[in-house]
């Protein structure tokens, strides 16, 4: 018998899931950019004998990916989820052709027929259940994240899978479009075996993954005969590897290097607006940033256009709010704008309770661009008479330092890795969201959660069935946090992918880890 969880339990599980998700992945995910629902490469050409190499910032074989047979589900297109995320950040059929909410807490997904795993076995509902169970067993926070009980995934028949959610959860299909839910073959000895257009040829632990096309893929064949993902951790080394020709493509290029790579004869860059927004989270519950006048003053001091043009070298889009304009329910155009108007900012500072304290600006020491942005902000704040100091924290302790409320201002960037972006607004602004939960549970405060009214709006948005409804509720949240200065919006992120000039056919995606490589080709 299924247990019906309380709302609080649902939220706690969801928050824990989101927390784990954010801790586990700071970027995006993968999927085929299929708009036909077949998952096939629609403009594929005749096969060639080309092999390509891609330099990744993170180890594609790291221990975390053991449940996927030791390879990352991002980028590689070895595994496919039931649901696809489109370039418009909406859901589309992939391994499931359709789905419906049977009742408020039950979803049924119909599987595509004729799908085979790389070992030739057919895709069945049991395989899907097994694949979800494997993820649930490995990561206990996942059921909370997607709102199902650990035993809530069952096979109705060979081609139908049922998901029992703990609460009414309209965003469920989009949530499982995340590549964590790429379907694997049920036999653990067979891993990594998926249904995607690429199959695993060779894995060099902590170094690289080599893939080849899956010849019996149901869709069009892919062009590269071999695709290798190499781990090149240091961003500058990735750039040098590309320039030297050691790799054909390099991801997560520092914005500061983008212009030089674009200008060079033998390299080029591809940019893509992502669902990620960079912003300053303002601590609402510590002096002096608990003063709304001061928060507004800081907002009036910031010039988002300068940040994008001068600091980020033209990549990105000046932000008005905390949610990237790529996300369907973002209300960028409807949000109020501040300055920059430093004169007005100075007046607000004088009217505020600020008395010369130095504000701490917390940044992740690994993020080169954040160091630049933080220094720029510090200079502007200094210009309006507000002292600040930058505190760099290593990536391992950055999030804990932030959620412990140790800084007045924290540079954060959040984006979604799936078509369901609801968790972003919850994580950031709900009192029980992962960013605020620690402080909220300890002393009833938080970090940048404005309070019960916003909590209610988020909960309504979470249960909204349509984008219009979500826009209404989440839009109100975005306006509220901007008006009260709970955030200082900075930019909507653009991913930068660099390639050799002779390489073409990269099909970009807002979620950069969903970039489609199946059309890669090389010219002389």
């Amino acid at each position, binding site marked *: 018998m299924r247990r019906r969880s309380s709302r609080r339990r649902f939220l706690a599980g969801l928050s824990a899931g989101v927390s784990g998700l954010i801790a586990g992945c700071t970027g995006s995910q993968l999927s085929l950019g299929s708009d036909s629902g077949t998952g096939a490469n629609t403009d594929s050409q005749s096969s060639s004998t080309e092999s390509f190499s891609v330099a990744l910032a993170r180890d594609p074989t790291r221990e975390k990916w053991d449940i996927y047979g030791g390879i990352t589900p991002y980028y590689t297109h070895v595994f496919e989820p039931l649901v696809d995320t489109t370039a418009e950040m909406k859901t589309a059929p992939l391994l499931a052709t359709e789905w419906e909410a049977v009742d408020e807490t039950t979803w049924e997904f119909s599987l595509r027929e004729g799908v085979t795993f790389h070992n030739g076995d057919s895709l069945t509902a049991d395989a899907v259940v097994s694949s979800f169970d494997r993820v649930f067993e490995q990561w206990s926070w996942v059921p909370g994240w997607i709102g199902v009980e650990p035993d809530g995934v069952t096979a109705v028949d060979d081609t139908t899978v049922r998901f029992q959610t703990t609460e009414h959860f309209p965003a469920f299909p989009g949530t499982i479009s995340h590549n964590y839910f790429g379907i694997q073959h049920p036999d653990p000895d067979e891993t990594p075996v998926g249904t995607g257009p690429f199959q695993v040829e060779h894995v060099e632990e902590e170094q690289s993954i080599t893939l080849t096309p899956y010849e019996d893929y149901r869709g069009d064949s892919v062009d590269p005969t071999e695709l290798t993902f190499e781990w090149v951790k240091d*961003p*500058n080394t990735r750039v040098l590897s590309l320039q030297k020709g050691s790799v054909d493509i390099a991801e997560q290029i*520092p914005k500061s290097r983008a212009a030089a790579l674009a200008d060079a004869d033998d390299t080029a860059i591809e940019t893509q607006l992502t669902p990620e927004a960079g912003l300053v989270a303002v601590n609402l519950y510590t002096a002096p940033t608990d003063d709304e006048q001061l928060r507004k003053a800081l907002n009036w001091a910031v010039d988002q256009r300068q940040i994008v043009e001068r600091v980020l070298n033209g990549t990105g889009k000046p932000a008005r709010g905390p949610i990237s304009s790529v996300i369907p329910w973002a209300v960028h155009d409807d949000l109020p704008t501040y300055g920059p108007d430093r004169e007005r900012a100075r007046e607000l500072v004088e009217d505020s309770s600020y008395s010369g304290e130095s504000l701490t600006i917390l940044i992740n020491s690994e993020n*080169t661009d954040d160091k*630049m942005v933080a*220094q*720029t902000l510090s200079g502007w704040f200094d210009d309006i008479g507000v002292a600040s100091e*930058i505190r*760099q924290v290593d990536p391992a302790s950055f999030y804990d330092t932030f959620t412990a409320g140790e800084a007045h201002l924290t540079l954060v960037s959040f984006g979604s890795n799936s078509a369901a972006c609801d968790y972003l607004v919850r994580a950031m602004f709900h009192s029980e969201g992962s960013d605020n939960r620690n402080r909220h549970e300890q002393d009833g405060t938080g970090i940048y959660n404005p309070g019960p009214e916003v909590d209610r709006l988020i909960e309504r948005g979470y249960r909204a069935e349509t984008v219009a409804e979500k826009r209404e509720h989440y839009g109100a949240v975005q306006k509220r946090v901007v008006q009260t200065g709970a955030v200082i919006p900075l930019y909507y992120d653009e991913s930068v992918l660099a390639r050799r000039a002779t390489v073409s056919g990269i099909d970009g995606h807002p979620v950069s880890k969903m970039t489609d490589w199946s059309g890669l080709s090389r010219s002389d």
Partner: protein
Amino acid sequence: MSAAQSDPQQRTADSRSRLTDTIRSNRLAQVGVVVVLSLVVAAVFGPLVSPYDPVEQNLAHQLEPPSPTHPLGTDQLGRDVLTRLLYGARLSLGIAVAVTGVRLVVGTAVGLVAGYAGGWVDEALMRLVDTLLAFPGIVLALVIAGVLGPSLVNVMLALAVVGWASYARLVRSNVLALRNREFVTTARLLGRSRTHVVVRHLIPNVVAPVVVLATLDIGGVILGTAGLSFIGLGAQPPTPEWGTMLASGRTYLQQAWWLVNAPGVCIMITVLGFNLLGDSLRDVLSPTQSAQMEQL
């Protein structure tokens, strides 16, 4: 030992004379002196004459190449690189002197106590010294600075903690050689207190090698500070510290060569200058200690 050998004033006069002779006759010594003096002058007076603020950004003048207005160009936030280098020199020298001073004082004290007291005190202190010397200094400093958190003060603390052991070992070995010499024995027989013996007879005789070691050490401290700042554990932006400048400039290596080369060359020349000066001092003040210090 002759009276002259135990007379600190006489030894100092002799050393000064030999130092002058060495500098006059040794080209490398001259280079060392000139570099160090130039650096001190630049650090003290440079910021006073520079028209720019080292942290004030000017985004309209990002990454400008060297020009008469900005002799070493501007950085990614439009700040004058030369100005930042001059302020950085003040910071680097200040840190180097402070850290080396702490190392010297602590190490000398421990070495004196261990060497003069002997017995279990000597054993205990020397095992501690052995333990510290067994660790690669920069790795230990990395751990300490990492645990304490990124800041210049913590880096100074970390570098001071890992560096005093060499001084202790050097001082102890000198004290062991000195404590049974006639002038020390005579002082004891005359009823002088331990403090008197240490202060009046031992310390003056270990000053020379310690000063030489300190001079050579300064370069290492500058390198250590720059290294830890380079990886983000030291100075926090926008503080104009050479290691931090080097780290932030490497992203622009191909666009703006001056961003990396300027602090890099400064670090190199400074360390070289101090090493040359230290070598010269060693030749003059403590020629017999050279091999001993090299072993350290």
